[in-house]
């Protein structure tokens, strides 16, 4: 079975290192905050000036002065702090974040990222902090469904949509696989068990290669 969205987020969370400073992009990556492994201290950064994002508040604890990049109410962890926007983006661009987990429309085999506009004339574009994050964090990983609802591959030889940044993505988590972007091309580290490699390749425009130690991709029901 393909992973559900929350399971993709769970899988990405398992790779977060103790002590890491991590930005979560809007959409799918935001769900990662629900799955931080209990044995690790990870400081989540939100572009609107929150360092130390905590879990969603209870109904009686919502404070609309405390929100995340997706404009949803959040809490602050013990030890957290607030900064203004310019300092928040200094953290982003200046290489102070260990990792940014971002959503995507498309990723190319070279790690090009497209996630800011589909060029739909009826749909104004919005770049937000995506371009700052894509060039500024020490590492970029993407969480994305393997194909569109219509079945079109999102992992492509070249992005069809306008780029957010070229050659920045290092790992891709999808509902079907965990894929590393390397100088030798796309290497599949893990894939779900009820699909074979040819089946995975058929859902991917770019060429894939299995890692020598290719492992099953499994996630608990979350």
């Amino acid at each position, binding site marked *: 079975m393909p992973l559900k969205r929350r399971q993709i987020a769970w899988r990405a969370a398992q790779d977060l290192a103790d002590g890491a400073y991590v930005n979560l992009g809007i959409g799918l990556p935001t769900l990662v905050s629900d799955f931080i492994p209990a044995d690790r201290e990870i400081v989540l950064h939100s572009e609107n000036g929150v360092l130390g994002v905590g879990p969603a508040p209870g109904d009686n604890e919502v404070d*609309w*002065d405390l929100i995340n990049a997706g404009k949803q109410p959040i809490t602050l962890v013990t030890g957290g702090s*607030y900064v203004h926007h310019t300092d928040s*983006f200094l953290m982003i661009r200046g290489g102070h974040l260990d990792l940014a987990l971002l959503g995507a429309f498309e990723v190319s085999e070279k790690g090009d990222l497209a996630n800011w506009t589909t060029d739909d004339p009826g749909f*104004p574009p*919005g770049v937000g902090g995506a371009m*700052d994050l894509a*060039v500024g964090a020490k590492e970029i990983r993407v969480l994305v469904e393997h194909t569109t609802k219509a079945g079109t591959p999102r992992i492509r030889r070249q992005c069809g949509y306008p*780029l957010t*940044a070229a050659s920045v993505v290092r790992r891709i988590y999808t509902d079907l696989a965990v894929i590393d972007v390397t100088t030798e091309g796309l290497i599949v580290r893990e894939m779900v068990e009820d699909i074979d490699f040819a089946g995975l390749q058929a859902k991917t425009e770019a060429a894939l290669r299995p890692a020598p130690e290719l492992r099953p991709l499994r996630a608990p029901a979350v």
Partner: protein
Amino acid sequence: MIDKRVRGLADAVAGIPDGAVILCAGFGGAGLPDALCEAVVEQGARDLTVVANNAGTGRGGLAALLAAGRVRRIVCSFPRSAGSVVFEELYAAGRIELELVPQGIISERMRCAAAGLGGFYSPVSVGTRLAEGKEHREIDGRMYVLEKPLKGDVALLAADRGDRWGNLTYRKSARNFNPTMAMAANLSIAQVRHIVELGELDPEMIITPGIFVDRVVHVPM
């Protein structure tokens, strides 16, 4: 004696000229100077350029200024969000100009203006459509584009507490663009939830010192 407090919203926004560049603080629903935006509708300035992260939601605040047809151009990182109906209508009808700027670059361009600098080289947007037409320069092996300062004629701010000198503090993520915009405009106007006596704000906690603020108006909420 320094007293930047004004009696009401009409006094707070008095004198904003047609064609002004207005820096409008806030991110999502936090730290928005809604009352000041609505006061500008009453005040009547038109042909405005607004710099803001989002292009307003619902019908109040910045959206009211857009709906009144006063904004010719908006400089924005993420115009479309839940409830940005007024902007979307104007955009679809071709009645508003949009300059899309990455979020951290809007902020840094304003900081640059505030600091009296002539621009800076940034790696953000290199290799994308948003870098087209910008001067490129390679520095120590990395490609950058030149970003120019972004100065406001007016800044509309929302703070938590303020005193008669214009010292301001904020709450939580409502700080967002407020401190940078306060520094980057010729006329900075703050709506504050609480007016406090001079000396009541701990100097260690003041985020925006009064030198950057020209008018303070009490807008409780």
